[in-house]
């Protein structure tokens, strides 16, 4: 199981990193979602015990799942939800001001803006 968890975490992380390097911002957001998923899975996999749900009354003689990692994973899930929603609206805002979600177009436009500002400052 240990290798399998590590392998799946690695796949999620690797595909996330690959998507983050893509040109359009939507895929960047997708990449961040995948990386968050990788991290949450990693946290859960790091639990010291696996078994029944940690809810009283506890089963006699059976192992119970590590509740600490679950609490942390919950926190991580909710935060990644908030961040993803923020990123999505950021992407939309970028689109409304620049009419593109392509990173290369954006950096060209930024450079152009900088140049214009510099010209104005000189003038």
């Amino acid at each position, binding site marked *: *199981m*240990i*290798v*399998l*968890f*590590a*392998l*799946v*975490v690695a*796949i*999620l*992380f*690797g*595909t996330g*990193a*690959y*998507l983050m*390097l893509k*040109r359009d911002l*939507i895929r*960047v957001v*997708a990449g961040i*979602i995948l990386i968050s*998923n990788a991290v949450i899975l990693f946290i*859960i*996999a790091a639990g*010291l015990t696996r078994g029944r749900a940690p*809810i009283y*009354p*506890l089963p006699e003689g059976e192992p119970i799942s590590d*509740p*600490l990692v679950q*609490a*942390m*994973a*919950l*926190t991580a*899930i909710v*935060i990644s939800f908030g*961040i993803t*929603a*923020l990123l*999505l*609206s*950021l*992407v*939309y*805002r970028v*689109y409304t*001001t*620049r*009419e593109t979600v392509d*990173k*290369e*177009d954006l*950096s*060209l*436009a930024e*450079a152009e803006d*900088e140049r214009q500002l510099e010209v104005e400052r000189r003038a």
Partner: protein
Amino acid sequence: MTVLLPLLLALGAAPVVLVAGVLGARPAAWASIVMAALACGATLWGRWAGGGALDVAWAPSWGLRLTFALDGLAVLYALLATGIGVAVLLYSARYLPLHLEHQGRPARDAIRFYALIVLFMGAMVGLVMAQDLLLIFVFWDLTAIASYYLIGYDRHKAESRAAALMALLVTGISAVLLLIGLLLLQALYGTFALPAIVERATPGPAQTLAAGLIAAGALVKSAQVPAHFWLPRAMAAPTPVSAYLHSAAMVAAGVFLLGRIYPLLRLSPFLLDLLLVVGLLSMIFGSVLALTRDVLKQILAYSTIAQYGYVVVMLSLGTSAGVVGAAFYVIAHALAKSALFLTAGTVTEVTGEDRLSRLGGQWRGLPVLAAASGVAAAGLGALPLTIGFFKDELFFKAALERGWPFAALATLGAALTLAYVWHFWSGIFLGPLRGEAGRPPLPLVAPIVALGLLVAVGGVAVAPAADLAEAAGRVAFADLQPVEPAYHLDARPENLLALATYALAATIIAARPRWFRLAAATARLGERVGPERWYAAGLVRLNRSSRALLALEVRDLRSRIATVLVPTAVLVAIGLWATPTEGAFRVGRITVTDLPTVLGLLLAAVGALVATVPRRPLTLILALSSVGYSLAAVFAFLGAPDVALVAVLIETILTLLFLGVLALFPAELLKDQAVGPAPRPSLRWRNVGVGLGAGAFAFAVGWATLSQPAAQESVAVQHIRLTPAAHAKDVVTAILADFRGLDTMGEITVIAIALLGIAALLGRRERPMASDERRATSDERASGEEKRRREGR
């Protein structure tokens, strides 16, 4: 009560003034004067009642207490802050309407001014009474903030704004030094309470460093060389502000703090020697520059640097006479300096001139003012029959105790002081008439007369001021020898030095044409290569580096992401290479009961791999949600139903949100993205390479970590045991809301901030310039597109 009353009156003054401001500017002025007078009276009453202390625990579990005490040091500085405050406010009540009228600003602007001055006063009173280092820091910063707004009060002038910013930045650095120092002290002695620290302090390098940092902060605030340059700039403020800033607040706060931590400074002779050097430099440098200045307020500004240099020297001489003398000096200086500043303000108001070279002979039109400010000037110049005589007597006494070289330097400093004071006063009032003569309104003269009277009375009956100074000295110096300043008509060394001073000053004044060029050249050199240049260059450097960082950040987002991923990978690789790995990795067993989990994991992996392929965003989103749901199933199989429930719910709502946002983009854009020009092959392989590398390292780290579970009993076991006591059955919920609730608190704060961010990004209000922006950028985009095609091919 003796502590609380002055404190509350001083701190409550600003709100009272603002409330009175509803009625208009004049009521606000009167409210400020009354509040300052009440605070002054309450301080006097507190001193009469024998002082006192106040200690309220407001967050005891974190060791946070509100501790104030009205000791000798606090009484002295609080009396100055409130007493000089009354004089300055009385003066402002007439001066400010005129000032605003000259600038064509509404009279209501004055309300803010009065409120800020009394806020400044409140911050000073709080600072001097605070016995807790954290409180000292808070009030220290409050004085900086109040002074920022006051120096930049004429906010339409670029010069004022720059001066205010400079004062804020420079004294902000002082606050940082103070903060580091007090945190060090807390780490050393485990408390922020100053009396306890003084009790526990023992000499040592760490203690020296902490006290040195705090002293450095105090020196910057007191405008000592080489951090003196902000003070002459701060003259851009309206005159009453300068008068107050120099005599009773802000600059005085620096030497106050030196007095407050004096027991700590005394532990290190090295620190005292360092202070001595800084003080002497400031004294000589400030005096020489003051002699070369032409603008009235500039002379006084450099004089302040020199005068606080005296105070630092006296403190660092480390004798009873020095410590009492320093406190006495602060009183005498505050009275005389505020009177001289107000004189400069009145003269400028009447004649419209602010330079010595265009003024002269004004005693004809302003005889009362000339007399009152003459007394004040004599006080600053330490002539007999003024309070100033005793400040120099104590100064000489302290210097003599240390040795003749110091006495010689003290004499030189005192002579220079007398010379520039004469230069200032005679330049305005004596000689042939230059500048218009006029009659000033009474309120612009009365406070100066009052201050001049105090200077003269102090020269006859020295006991009240001496008592104040001695009480203040006793706080700093537990084993204080009584020093009683008095007139002695005999040939003791102090008197001889005073006579030498007068003779030397007369020589300096008479020989002015001979040394003036040299002094002016020194001043110019200081301006060209001095610390003010370093400050300006530092600002330019900072701006440039932040622009460079911005350029790096914005130019290519992908390189930026890669620059995060690649160094991380390198670090991880080094870590893996350096760690012995033999037997560290475990494969783990898979049993039949694990099959559903394995299935879910495999589905998630497939979903993630699929997500890299599609060109259509819709397919991408579906692949993503399949990953999310598979993982939720895995969580459920692993005995984590809470996580599984939240994961399913959040995955669903996130998918819907993602679809909703996609619906906002026009179909052409998405199609364009999907079909668009294919990336250059090299880039594509770079991306695949980075992805594979990131995956490989995540695998290595993940496997290594998961193979090594912590050996000792998990905290979780404790949590499980404690859950019934916490009135809960679900351990996970109990952890979230109780055992580790602070984590949850932090998390929901993040969520709240994210909501603010979304609201700011998608809010209903369209920005007015958005449409123009859009047009402009779409043009740019077209040209950018073309450029890229050319490069791509």
